[in-house]
C-alpha cells in the first residue's frame, strides 16, 4: 500500500465519523419532533396516563433531552446501542445481531444477481446495438424495473411455491430443520457450513433463491442501461478500433477490453445501489417473511421506537460508509490512472 493511499484511507475513515454523527443526530431529533411516543404508539389507550408516565420513567424518556442525547452517543461509541423501547425492550445489539445478518445474507446474492444479469445483458445489448435483441433487452429491463418488488415476489411465490412447488415459499430455512439448527453467526449459510449441517445448508440456499432473485432483478434495469450506454461509447473509442484492426476477436474486445473499462461508473452505481438495496430489502423481507433489518426499521419507525431506529440507521450509515470506502479502494485497483 502506497503511503498516499494510506493517507487517503485514514482521511476517509476519519471523515466517516462526522458523517455518521451528523446523520444520527438528525435522526435523534427528527424522531423526537415527530408526534407520538413509543408508549402510546404501542399500548394505545390501554394504559392510564399515570402508568404511561411510569413506563416513560422506567425507559428513561422523561430525562432531559440533552442527557438522552449524550447517553445515546455514548451507547453508539461503545456499540452498546441500549435497549429497544417497544416490542419487548430487548437489547438492540441482540436484535441487530439477529436481523442484520439475515439482511446481508439476502443482499449479497441479490447484488451479485443484479450485477451479473445487468452488466452482462447490458454489454450484450451494446454489442448487438439496434438489433432486435438490443430492443428486447432494453424493453425487458424497463418492464422489470417498473414492476413493484412485492408484486414480483408474490408472482414468483404463486408460480414456484404454490402452483409448481419446487421452491420454499418463505422464511430462511425449513421449519423442522430450524428447530434443530445451531446458529452461531446468524448467517445461516455460514453457520450450516461451519457445523457441517448439509441438509440445513441446502435448505438455507434454496430459501435464498426466490427472495434474492426478486430483490436482484428489481435493480437490474439500471445496470442494463448504464452498461449499455457506456459500452456503446467505449466500443467506438480508438483503442477498440485499433484492436479490431489488429484482428483481436470481437468477443474478446467486447467482454474483456471494453467491459473492463466501463467498470468505473458501474462500480460507483453498485456502491450506491447497495445502500438502496439495504433499504429496499424491506419489501422483499415482508413478502418472504424474511426476518431482516429492513422490516424491523419500518416497524420501529411506526412505533416511534427511538433507540431502535437511531441504532439501526447508525449501523446502516456505518455500513454504507464502509461500502463506499471499499469502492474507492477497488477503483484504485482496477484503474491504474486513479491515484490517491
Amino acid at each position: 500500500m502506497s503511503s498516499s493511499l494510506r493517507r487517503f484511507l485514514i482521511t476517509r475513515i476519519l471523515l466517516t465519523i462526522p458523517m455518521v454523527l451528523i446523520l444520527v443526530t438528525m435522526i435523534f431529533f427528527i424522531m423526537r419532533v415527530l408526534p407520538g411516543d413509543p408508549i402510546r404508539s404501542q399500548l394505545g389507550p390501554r394504559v392510564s396516563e399515570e402508568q404511561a408516565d411510569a413506563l416513560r420513567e422506567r425507559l428513561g424518556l422523561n430525562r432531559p433531552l440533552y442527557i438522552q442525547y449524550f447517553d445515546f452517543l455514548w451507547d453508539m461509541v461503545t456499540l452498546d446501542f441500549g435497549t429497544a423501547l417497544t416490542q419487548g425492550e430487548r437489547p438492540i445489539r441482540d436484535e441487530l445481531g439477529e436481523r442484520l445478518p439475515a439482511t446481508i445474507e439476502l443482499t449479497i446474492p441479490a447484488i451479485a444477481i443484479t450485477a451479473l444479469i445487468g452488466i452482462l445483458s447490458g454489454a450484450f445489448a451494446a454489442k448487438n446495438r439496434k438489433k432486435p435483441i438490443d430492443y428486447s433487452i432494453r424493453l425487458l429491463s424497463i418492464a422489470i424495473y417498473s414492476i413493484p418488488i412485492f408484486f414480483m415476489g408474490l408472482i414468483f411465490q404463486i408460480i414456484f411455491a404454490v402452483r409448481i412447488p419446487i421452491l420454499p415459499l418463505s422464511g430462511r430455512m425449513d421449519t423442522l430443520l430450524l428447530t434443530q439448527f445451531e446458529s452461531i453467526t446468524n448467517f445461516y449459510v455460514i453457520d450450516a457450513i461451519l457445523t457441517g449441517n448439509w441438509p440445513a445448508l441446502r435448505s438455507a440456499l434454496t430459501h435464498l433463491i426466490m427472495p434474492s432473485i426478486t430483490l436482484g432483478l428489481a435493480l437490474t434495469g439500471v445496470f442494463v442501461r448504464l452498461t449499455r450506454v457506456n459500452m456503446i461509447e467505449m466500443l467506438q473509442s480508438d483503442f477498440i478500433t485499433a484492436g479490431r484492426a489488429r484482428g483481436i476477436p470481437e468477443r474478446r474486445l467486447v467482454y474483456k477490453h471494453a467491459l473492463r473499462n466501463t467498470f468505473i461508473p458501474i462500480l460507483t452505481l453498485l456502491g450506491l445501489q447497495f445502500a438502496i438495496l439495504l433499504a429496499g430489502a424491506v419489501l422483499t423481507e415482508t413478502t418472504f417473511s424474511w426476518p431482516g433489518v429492513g422490516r424491523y426499521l419500518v416497524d420501529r419507525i411506526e412505533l416511534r421506537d427511538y433507540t431502535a431506529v437511531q441504532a439501526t440507521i447508525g449501523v446502516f450509515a456505518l455500513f454504507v460508509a464502509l461500502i463506499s470506502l471499499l469502492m474507492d479502494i477497488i477503483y484504485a485497483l482496477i484503474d491504474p490512472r486513479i491515484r490517491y
Partner: protein
Amino acid sequence: MKKKYLLLIVVLLLSSFVLGACQQATEEPVEETEEPVVEETEESMEPEYLWTTNLREAIAAAIDREVIVDRVFEGRNVPAYHMVPVGYPYATQPFFDKYGTRDLDMAISLLEAEGYTADNPFVFDLWFPPEHYGTTTADVMQVIKEQLEETGLIVVNLNSMNWAEYVDGFVAGDLPFFMLGWFPDFADPENWLSPFASCLQSPDNGVNYCNEEMDSLLQSAAASADPAERESLYQQIGELYAEEVPTIPLFWEPEFVSYRTGVEGVVVGPPFEFNYDVLSFGDDADPASGNTDTIIIGTTDEVNSLDASDAYATHDWEIIKNTGAALLSYTPGTSELIPGAAAAMPEVSDDGLTYTFTLRDNLAFADGTPVSAQNYVDSWNRLNTLEGQVSGLIQLYVESVEAVDDLTVAYHLKDTFGFFPALSATAPFVVTNPATFVEDEIVQFPDVLDGIGPYRMVSHSVGEQMVLEANPEYFGEAPLIPNVIIRYFADPTTMSNAVESGEIDVAWRTLGPVEAVRLQEVDGVTVDTVDAPALRYMVFNHTYEVQE
C-alpha cells in the same frame, strides 16, 4: 455520461424526499389554532361542551350499521348494537331497541330541537386512523359521513392522521369525535362498559364521560356476584347507555382461521382462546412437518413479552396460556368458566372482598419444581413491584394475595368485584416459574418457558419461529399433538400462500378478509370465521368545548 446518471440519482432521491415531506404535510392535522382563545375564557366562565345528549342521540339514530357492514365488508362483519358482544354473558341490544337499525326522522327532529337548519347545519370534525384498523376504515368513515349528512342538518369534515399522532391527539382531548377499536382483557361486560362509561376509566380512552347514575349502576353490577341481579343491572345499564350515548358501537370485526384438511380440533370460542392441546390430525391429514407429532401454526403477530407479569397483547397471552394455566379456565369454545390450576371454583367471603382458591395438589412446573400457594404470592409481588405493562389492569382490582396454606391462595380485592372469576382466567393469573422469571426483573424474552400448562416452550427465534413441546408435568390430559411450532409471518398474503402450499397446517391471526375469501376457494383448505370480540366504535369526547 456517468455524471449524468449520478445527477439523475440525486434528483430522484431529492424528489422522493420532497414527495415524502408533502405526504407528511397532508396528513398533518389542519387545526389546533384556536385553543389559546378558549383557554383564556375558561377561567371566567363555565365551559360549554360541544356534545349535548340530543346531538349524541341524533348521531346514534342516523348511523345505519347494516349498510356499513354490507357496503364495506360485504356482510362479513357483525353490526354492534351494544358494547358487549352477543354470545357473552349479559349481552343485550339496547341501541337496536332504541333506534332500530336506523331512525332518520328521530335524528332530524333532535337536530332541529338543537336549533340546526339546512342553512345553519351542525358542522364538526370526525377523525380516524387510516391504517391502524385496516384500510377499510376510510370507507367506513365515508359511509358514516354520508349517513349523517343525509339528515340535511349536519356537515362532517373527515380527517385522518397516523396512529402515533392520533393516540396523542385523543388522549390529550384534541379530537371531538373519533373512531377506535376495543379488544377485551377479560370476558365480562364490565370490561366492555366501564372503560368507556365510568368516571374513573373513561378519560383513558378519550371519552371523558361521567354520569353519577351510570357510575353507580356500573359499580353495583361489577360488585354483584349474583347472576340474576347482574342481568337486571346490565339490562338497565344498556338502556341508559343507548340514551346517554357515551360512545356508539359500530360493528364486530371477525377473525379467520384457516387449516388444511385433516387438522381437527380448531375451536376458537367466545373468550377468544385458541387451545393447541386439543388439536389433532385425522386419518386424511398431510401434516406440513411430514409427521403427525408436529403441527405448524402460522401467525402474523409478534411476541412482545412472554412474562405473565408484563405481557399485554393477544398473541403473548395465547402463548402464556398454552404454556401455563390460569387459576380458572374455559371449556374450549365456550365462555363457561371451569377450574384451571385451581382444583375448584373459588370460595367468596361474605363481604365479597376475598376470593379463595384451592390449588390442584399435583401442580408442578415443566422443569419438575412443585408449585405451591407461595408461588402465587410471589407472582403477584412481581407483578405489583415490577410495574410491567399489564400491572395497571390487575392493580385496579387486587389489593393483596395471601398464601393461607400450601395449597390455598386468597386474593383480597380493593372492592367487591363479581367478575373476578373471569379476571382470574387471564394470563396475569398464570403462575410464573421463579427459575426463569427472577424476582427483580421483567423477562420478556425467556429462553424457555417451563410453566404448568399443556406445553413448554423449548426455543424461540424472534420473528422466525417458536417451538413448543408437551409438558411432562402437566396436570391435565396430555396434548393430542406433542409438538407445536409457531411460524411468524410478516405478511398475511404470504401466510395464506403458506397454508395453501402446505408449508403450515394452520393459518391463524391475522388472516385478512381478502385472503380468507380467496382461501375458501382452495381445495384442501378450510376457512372458519371466528366471532372475535373485536369492537369498532365511535367516541364522543364529552369534554370537548365548543370552538368559536
